[in-house]
């Protein structure tokens, strides 16, 4: 039986087994490929999306357990209308390979939504689950601080 999912403001009827993780619903069923597969065991954060504003690892949320509205990187902003945090990422030229950055940004956006001026320690706490093999961490930190400024000025 099809399960309704609200993703980036749009409702989809998904006809897949209940236990298929949200990650694979988004990528292979809905076609939203901005959310990435990195490990499948909640160890890398590449699959981070938001459910009702909370950052979650979509590889660990079964289709039938999705408890609210899903926002993916595509729902945060678009190339022509980027969110402030995405602009900050561009300003600091954060991405190298870029594969983890959707997850990094979704995690950081959730952090800033609840705490518009996080300390370094708070950034560490929020972001430590998001792996980046290219080692872009110094620029991720700078971009979060920059986005925090932008949000406070706005």
């Amino acid at each position, binding site marked *: 039986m099809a399960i309704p999912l609200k993703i980036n403001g749009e409702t989809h009827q998904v006809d897949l087994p209940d236990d298929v993780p949200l990650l694979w619903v988004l990528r292979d069923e809905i076609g939203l490929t901005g959310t990435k597969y990195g490990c499948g065991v909640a160890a890398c954060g590449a699959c981070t999306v938001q459910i009702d504003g909370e950052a979650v690892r979509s590889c660990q949320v079964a289709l039938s357990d999705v408890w609210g509205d899903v926002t993916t990187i595509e729902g945060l902003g678009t190339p022509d209308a980027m969110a402030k945090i995405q602009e900050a990422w561009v300003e600091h030229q954060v991405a190298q390979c870029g594969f983890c950055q959707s997850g990094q940004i979704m995690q950081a956006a959730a952090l800033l939504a609840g705490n518009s001026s996080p300390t370094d320690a708070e950034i560490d706490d929020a972001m430590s689950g998001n792996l980046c093999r290219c*080692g872009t961490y110094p620029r991720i930190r700078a971009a979060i601080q920059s986005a925090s400024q932008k949000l406070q000025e706005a």
Partner: protein
Amino acid sequence: MSRIGKIARRSFLIGSAAIVGGVAFGIYKINQPVKNPLTTGPGEAALNPFIFIDQNGVTIITPRAEMGQGTQTTLAALAAEELDLDWKDVRVLHGPPAAAYYNSAMLSSSLPFKEYAMSEFQHTLADQLSKAGKLIGLQITGGSTAMQDGFDRLRMAGASARETLILAASDRWGIATRKLRTENGAVIAPDGTSLRYEELAEQAAKTEVRQPELRDRSTWRYIGKSMPRLDQVAKVTGTAEFGLDVRREGMKFATVRMNPNLGAGMIRFDPAPALDMPGVEKVIDMGRGVAVVATNTWLAFRGAEAVEIEWEAAPYPPEQDGIWSAIDASFEGKPNSTLRDDGDIETPIEGSTTITAEYRVPFLAHATMEPQNATALYTGDELEMWCGNQAPTVVQARCAEAVGLEKEQVNLTTTFMGGAFGRRGEYDYAVYAALVAKEMQGTPVQVTWSREEDMTHDFYRPACIGRFTGAVKDGRAVQLAGAVAGPSVALGATQRLIGIKPSGPDLVHVEGAYDQPYDIPNYRITGHLTDVDLPIGFWRSVGASVNGFLHESFMDELAHAAGQDPLQFRLKLMRPVHAASAGCLDKVREMSDWTGQTPDGVGRGLAFSYSFGTPVAQVIEVVDEDGSIRINKAWIACDVGLALDPSIIEAQMFGALMYGLSAACFEEITFAGGAVEQQNFPDFDALRIHTAPQVEVAILENNAHMGGVGEPGTPPSMPALANALFDLTGIRARELPLSKAFDLLI
């Protein structure tokens, strides 16, 4: 992306100037200081198409692929500089598999010269050898060579395109070329009338290409500046297309489960349990494992786990101890190489103090963030492929062989790579997709490896043992003998990629050890190869990733044995040999305010490595926080000779350091029962934001020749950390990862 995608699908002709709806410009000949017999063969007049213009604008075709290192941005800047493009109009596309995109710098780095000491004659010889890359069409992104290769070629391509467009406008208007100028993608007449390049494209296609002079460095607008990377917006909005993101109408999702005893086959398998599972449509016999095709990648993963398989045994010692024994045994007998043998290391020097040390470094996986994958569509007489890869001509040829087509029948689109670090210089993942597609004729299939499959079926950085002996006298190193034993990267990889079984000294095995700029009068480095049938591959900085740790840990031990400050000790040995290298030590001393002294609870370590044409010095600071050690800060000074894009170089330098530190702290691949034990990131972790140091990077331009930037930051990071931990604790760790000996913050 969509417009560029259309261009890609138009599959323009390589080697022809005229293209339907557009024009490709290239170089007729490379400006050669010495006549090269290798370049005069038939087919040499074929253009190297780097610049594509159609009615929609200009696209720069990059010969190297984007795996995060920023190569497309800088290659585009080189061409755009000469072509007078507005940066906001610059579009890039990966070159399709073609000999025209050969890497000229790859082979020249294979000469057994100490790069820092190369004479002009040797540089000319290297230039000559580089032309051989053209003959064998070595289209490889690797070896930190993209800029040495592309610096002249992309600028010449841009300059000749501009000249031709001016000629076309001159014909159109009947105005002499000297009265015309170009600006922001248009040719402009004296009265201000302008024609966009795209309006001139068709006419330019009929115009003979000329090769003008290149612009003087003093006039550069893009080169040498930190350009906004062309991939950033796509990568922060989830719209960048990685291999995993390829989507085709009617596509199926598949995975593979190959024998964990690497290289061995299957005795039997039973697909029935998988076929009973939801979404699973097919189980394919892959010889050394199975592929499972499903309606969803996760359902394919589940199906693959359910297939019952009996595996053949590994063709190598099944336990890690057995592999170490094999490596240890390879010290016996004649070495494969003695690429440095200065003076006399046998006769003891009176009044000197001798020390010895043995080091061990483990096998390492690449663990790219994006697991291996490829997408393929087989239609009987054609194979369409999409994947991130570092060697398109190799991928094309091997996939063609696998499905029984000619390579011209394989169309390969190279996507962005979610990390590569050498892993995507292989082609196994592409061949698997081609084979699966052949079984699914007419249906596109994406074959995605699980993280576990990726980690347990890599081509690993070899485990190695280093035995070093040295003597110090009057505060200086007077003897150094190093022997490095382990499986060869080059032997297997050269056979896989080029089909040649190399013989003679294995330079890669000892790079980072034999070629360091130290004035030690009695100095010998030998390489010993271990013959074990394991998949070994290129891992960021390759041999230097091993030898940087061995050599620079030992230099630190020598400095302490000599009672000298480790920085001063190196500087004295380096200054007379190579000024640019010594300049990196000077710079990193200044940046870090190095005094040789640290307060209680703080340790600092230094290391230096000259690799891929670039000397790099690093200082790392560690702090003891209630018994747990945190890497606090890293200072990096590099000398790249000519800095094409400072922001990208900075990112590569600290990224390469982080990659090395991740390995140094936490990573090892070990074998048990024939299989790799580590499965996923919890067993093979990396630095994270809270464990990564703050970084400061200085980019110098004093070296005589332009060096690479993607890899040289990795080799010194591991010994710099080990040396810092020694400074903090007094414990000398001679084995990686360091988490075995220290309580590192996790």
